[in-house]
């Protein structure tokens, strides 16, 4: 569509975005997976989000027109821009950027004006994902979040700062750092630094907030960076904690979770007594909560793009009803909070020259994005950079779900490159793999995504590949999903016994060597000048 900036924004006002009839006696504010995005960004939602087993065709595994139809969203509307991928770059011209924690602050303040003791709960993946976050070891995010005054948070990527740094920050946090599933790995006892839950008195209601950190931290991320801790789903302990808080008089039980959406759904069916799950990790944004039994599950997106408000009526220890709104943070419509804007600018000030340096730009028909089960264009560009700068046959790039988008004809700054690559283990390695091992790798990652039992899923996306084509049948068991692996540069089938030069990054193995991925990508973009990518049709998906 063709959307004039003014026409689009006329329909939108801050008042309208924040419109909410205060309900019941308790308000929860949920934000999650900010990935250190302090400033407004563009963020394209996925076009491919495949559900398997019992979750096939169920939210959040619905995208695009199907998603709009399900929720009654008009094409070209603000919700269509915020929640679906079609016409992304055209709608972005009209509606502008999203997120920015100074805008988030305005939304939080407005909710607190209605309900002063609303609980602000941060689902984690907060202290990771940008140039300034990397260079300050998360301090920029800690300072800005402290200004928002959360009541509790839980964790995932935070631990990739290393356990010493995590301990240093957590010991100074002015709010609760929760995780019922964070245990000390030596004696298998609850880690003292992370209480399982905290009680709050709000609206005359005794609310217990239980934390659930990402269960698969030492698998999806380098366990050697935090060897003191063990995680896991720990259903039974979760049930024990729910029982414990109920026995101690909790009238409302809220789970602040970094499980990922399908895991939360399964947990809601197994653990009884949870009223609300505030779900994080899989970066899904849903305009309505999903109900499992008597539990409501709220998904609030990522990268600072959304805030969820959940008002609840709690009477005599029972949740009698709720009202919910997923508030998209339209950056041009919501007035930044001046105090928080100042804190943000102070964090960025020492690095402004580095951040703003323009490295290249996108061609007039080239969007860069990542979200989706398979390669996005940002991933294609990163894989191209790895193949060309590291002289490899094949590139592997992690299927992470963070990283903002770049519009056509937009400058690519150093900050933009760091927003999609920044991490504490970003070495771009180069190694040899046999065709057989490469197959094992793809099968292994595919099973972490497409295993029909959510408890075997890790919530990332398929490893991104460059220089390699394959066919995947998502319905098959591990070992049988990936076929027809092809080396694109020759068109030959991958030979199991032959050795290939592989370049990749974000290895979870200790001692991985190579230049930082952001330098590799920057060098490649600088050489290209204007980024224009060939369409990528190298992965054929079957059974979705």
């Amino acid at each position, binding site marked *: 569509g063709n959307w004039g900036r003014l026409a689009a924004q006329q329909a939108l006002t801050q008042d309208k975005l924040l419109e909410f009839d205060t309900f019941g006696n308790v308000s929860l504010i949920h934000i999650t997976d900010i990935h250190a995005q302090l400033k407004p960004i563009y963020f394209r939602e996925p076009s491919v989000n495949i559900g398997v087993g019992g979750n096939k065709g169920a939210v959040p595994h619905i995208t695009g027109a199907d998603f709009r139809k399900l929720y009654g969203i008009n094409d070209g509307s603000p919700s269509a821009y915020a929640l679906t991928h079609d016409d992304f770059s055209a709608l972005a011209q009209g509606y502008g950027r999203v997120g920015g924690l100074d805008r988030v602050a305005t939304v939080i303040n407005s909710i607190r004006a209605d309900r002063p003791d609303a609980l602000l709960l941060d689902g984690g993946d907060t202290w990771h994902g940008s140039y300034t976050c990397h260079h300050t070891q998360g301090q920029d995010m800690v300072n800005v979040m402290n200004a928002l005054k959360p009541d509790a948070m839980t964790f995932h990527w935070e631990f990739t700062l290393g356990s010493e740094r995590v301990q240093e920050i957590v010991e100074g946090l002015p709010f609760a750092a929760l995780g019922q599933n964070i245990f000390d790995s030596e004696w298998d006892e609850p880690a003292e630094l992370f209480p399982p839950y905290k009680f709050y008195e709000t609206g005359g209601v005794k609310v217990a907030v239980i934390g659930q950190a990402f269960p*698969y931290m030492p698998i999806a991320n380098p366990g050697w960076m935090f060897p003191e801790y063990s995680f896991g789903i720990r259903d039974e302990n979760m049930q024990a904690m729910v029982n414990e808080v109920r026995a101690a008089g909790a009238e409302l039980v809220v789970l602040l979770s970094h499980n990922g959406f399908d895991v939360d759904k399964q947990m809601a069916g197994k653990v009884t007594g949870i009223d609300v799950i505030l779900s994080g990790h899989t970066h899904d944004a849903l305009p309505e909560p999903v109900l499992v039994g008597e539990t409501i599950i709220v998904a609030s997106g990522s990268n600072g793009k959304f805030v969820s408000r959940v008002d609840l009526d709690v009477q005599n220890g029972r949740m009698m009803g709720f009202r919910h709104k997923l508030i998209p943070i339209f950056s041009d419509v919501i007035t930044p909070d001046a105090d928080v804007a100042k804190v943000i600018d102070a964090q960025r000030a020492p690095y402004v020259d580095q951040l703003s340096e323009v490295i290249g730009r996108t061609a007039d028909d080239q969007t860069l994005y990542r979200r989706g089960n398979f390669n996005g264009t940002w991933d294609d560009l990163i894989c191209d950079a790895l193949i060309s700068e590291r002289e490899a046959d094949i590139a592997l790039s*992690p299927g992470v779900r963070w990283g903002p988008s770049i519009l056509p004809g937009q400058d690519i700054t150093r900050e933009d490159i760091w927003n999609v690559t920044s991490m504490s283990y970003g070495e771009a390695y180069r190694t040899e793999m046999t065709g057989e091992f490469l197959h094992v790798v793809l099968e*292994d*990652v595919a099973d*972490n995504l497409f295993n029909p039992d959510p408890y075997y899923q890790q919530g990332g996306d398929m490893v991104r590949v460059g220089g390699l084509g394959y066919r995947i049948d998502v319905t098959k068991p*591990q070992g049988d999903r990936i076929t027809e692996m092809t080396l694109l540069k020759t068109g030959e089938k991958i030979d199991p016994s032959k050795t290939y030069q592989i370049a990749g990054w974000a290895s979870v193995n200790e001692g991985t060597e190579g230049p930082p991925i952001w330098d590799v990508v920057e060098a490649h973009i600088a050489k290209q000048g204007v980024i224009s990518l060939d369409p990528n049709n190298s992965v054929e998906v079957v059974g979705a």
Partner: protein
Amino acid sequence: VGAAAFLIAGLPMRASAATEDLIAAFTGGAEVGAGDITLTAPEIAENGNTVPIEVSSETAVEILVLATGNPAPSVATFKFGPLAASRAASTRIRLAGTQDVVAIAKLPDGSFVQAASTVKVTIGGCGG
């Protein structure tokens, strides 16, 4: 996904004949049913070299644990003495790849029951 991930086989491993021999040696060839035995293990191992497992039973006198996909499937045998307050124990085990872990309990009447749990050992990497 990484360079040094070669040590771990990513594909499910099959139970070996050795597993059946070990079970036969423990049971004397008696039939193994289902019943008073629980095996608790993680769905996905955080580290294949140290996988926490727990066996428990109301009445077992002895519990054999086998990792059916390991090159040598024997793991441990727990014998409960008169001062055991429960027929339960936890330990940490090595798994060479994704496989079924099996616990077989000998009950006081001389019968045998078993429980199994699939533990996935993954190369890891990536995330949301």
